[in-house]
């Protein structure tokens, strides 16, 4: 068997894998709202700092200072 068949099989299966990933992303609703995630990813991650009260103050003040 010629090596070209192997190469073709590999390249096409890689392409198909990406295509399947695309289909999955559409199906899971990732294309329904293309704006909100772009805002969401920019939020400071300070949920943790408020969950335990002991070091919340120091952390939240840090986040604030980085914001300004």
């Amino acid at each position, binding site marked *: 068997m010629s090596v070209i068949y192997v190469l073709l099989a590999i390249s096409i299966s890689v392409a198909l894998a990406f295509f399947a990933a695309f289909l999955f992303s559409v199906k899971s609703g990732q294309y329904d709202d293309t*704006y909100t995630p772009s805002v969401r990813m920019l939020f400071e991650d300070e949920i943790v700092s408020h969950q335990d009260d002991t070091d919340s103050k120091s952390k939240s003040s840090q986040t604030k200072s980085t914001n300004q």
Partner: protein
Amino acid sequence: MTNTTCYHCGDQCGKQHVRFDERDFCCNGCKTVYEIFTTNGLSTFYDIEARAGTTPNAIEGKYNFLDNLEIMEKLVEFDEGGVQVVNLGIPSIHCSSCIWVLENLNRLHKGISSSQVDFPKKTIRVAYRTDTISLKALVLLLGSIGYEPNISLESYNKKQAGVDRSLIYKLGVAGFAFGNVMLLSFPEYFEVEEFWLDQYKPVFRWLMFAFSVPVVLYAGKDYFISAYKGLHSKLLNIDVPIALGILTLFLRSTADIMFDLGSGFFDSLTGLVFFLLLGKFFQQKTYAYLSFERDYKSYFPIAVTRLKENGVEENVQIYKVKTGDHILVRNQEIIPVDCSLVNGIAEIDYSFVTGESRPVTKEPGEKMFAGGKQLGGVLEVEVLKSVSQSYLTQLWANSVFSKDKASQFQTITDSIGKRFTIAVLTIATLATVYWLIYDASMALNVFTAVLIIACPCAIALAAPFTLGNMLRIFGKYGFYLKNTNTLERLAKINMVIFDKTGTLTTTHRDTILYEGMELTEEETALLKTTLRASNHPLSRSLYDILKSNEIMTLDEFQEHTGKGIEGRVKDHSMKVGSAAYVGKQGSMTTSNTAVYISSDAHIKGKFVFKNAYRDGVGQLFGELAQRMQLGILSGDNDGERQQLQHLLAADAEMLFNQKPEDKLNHIKKKQEHHNVLMVGDGLNDAGALAQSDVGVAVSENINVFSPACDAILDASQLNKLPRLIKLSKKSMRIIKLSFLLSLAYNLVGLYFAVTGQLQPVIAAILMPLSSISIVAFTTLGTNWVGKQLK
């Protein structure tokens, strides 16, 4: 302190200025939201965007109906194992701070497990545990932080419509195949005479074939369906030559590789479908958060409080309300049915219906129409007609609401497509006949080549890209069109008909004129003092315009709700109110709202309240009148006929006292000779908006209210209307120019096709080149023309 703005909502801090935590707040509501946020560790809200909050409204009791199990079940999307998921529309979502706080709702209540905002649609999806929080508690929680959800009769009737993602799938399939086929056909482009490549040619070709099959059968199937439908109803739409092109490309290419005649045109085929779908995708731009399909259901409550005979209150679904029932209407609630007042003081704001926002006072026994909003206390009313039988809602039984304007309109692409198809078929036949005579072996080759090269990809792309881009430009300037079809219809308009109240007039300002005997300084001061004590909206507006700085202390003050007020200082008394209240005899039917004044039992005169016209209305009429006919269609009386006639052209038709059905019929009559643009705002215009060629709803706040229409225009942009119409005409000119351009490409291609020299590589170059240059031309063209709006 004059320039302080609220730390929460950014409004001017006025009378109810509150200082709290070293910050300024415009009212207690905003302060409370601030308190909730800071005590729950949500103060980041103010860091993301400053002064982005919304003032909460008082909503106590409004959502009691959510306790009703049947109604609640209709609203929630998922309900199992103690977990419910609900999708709520929140009109006040407007910035990233909103997203942040709404997605951190779980910090406000531990019963909420997750919440996700869809910003373009302005909705939030909340999952919560029913053992700790109920739907009603959730809605009240949202309301308390200024994000009151919009729950209307519409949400009750709504079917769970799935999201249509088929176009994205198709685009994905076509794009995937296009890329792969392009790579696979590369060796063939260069005609390398290499043994190694020649040996594997069939493998490459059959792979391309495999990639093309789903493109033709799945991605391109809409074109076949549309072409079939068009032919079935004896119409040659643009999809006919497209479908013909796709089919010929596929069959010819398959035959080519089967009999080893050539490499086929699979690259052109997949590229063609991909570009066409891209055009469709671009055209699909819609304003997800705006609804163009609203009817009364979007504004009417889901449930009302019904009084049983023994005086017990119960929440019932609105369709279950029968004639004779007694129901309660609370402050800020909409009256859902025609009814008569039994108990309470009614101040009805009919702005949803007519655009007129000044409340109308009703006394017990008087009839009230559905659609009005109660301002003030609780009312007990007796139902006269059920919801669907009411005066306003009956309008929606008219067949005009089930018609689809877009399907009755032949787009420019379709009208070109017809001539184009005929031309292509003629050329193909002539060329085939010629070759049959001279070299019969070439005949089939030439016939298919003509059909392939003439496939009107560029023509089909011109309109979607021009109109889609124009839609975006219009949207930037506050003019939101439902679809590109509306834009084409707008370009054909030659008559504009306006509603008056709420459309040409603004609800924000009043013009107040005084008619009668002149008031002395003392009387003016007394009048102002008396007005100061009253909370009635008319008293407030009047108080603001009176130029007297002297404020006295009233010895006596009485307010007779629905009639007027009376104030006394020493031995002088002042009565302000309706004609009957001050003792004016034979009160004639005045066309405007008026407040009568009597001092010491002598009638002095009256203050007449008139709606102020929006800025630039005169100029708007002037600009429009140069090119089209104008008209006025108002539900009000003709009190302002003179003033309007002065603003309008002399031959403009003006009709007053028009019922919703009258408006609809008038438009229908005008359409016999004109293409009518209707500009309105209230639910009473809904029929006229639906009937007209283009119905534009003017709205002061695009998120809040607009009846069903083809386009929504921000009220502040009303004076731009003539320019917007002009721009729509220019867009059509751009499309026509692009047609010429693509025709030039087609002629070049046809030369190769007719002479029998069409190589796959030429088709593969010509097709994307023409498409891309058309897209570039239309995008640049519309942007350049769009600059004129500034």
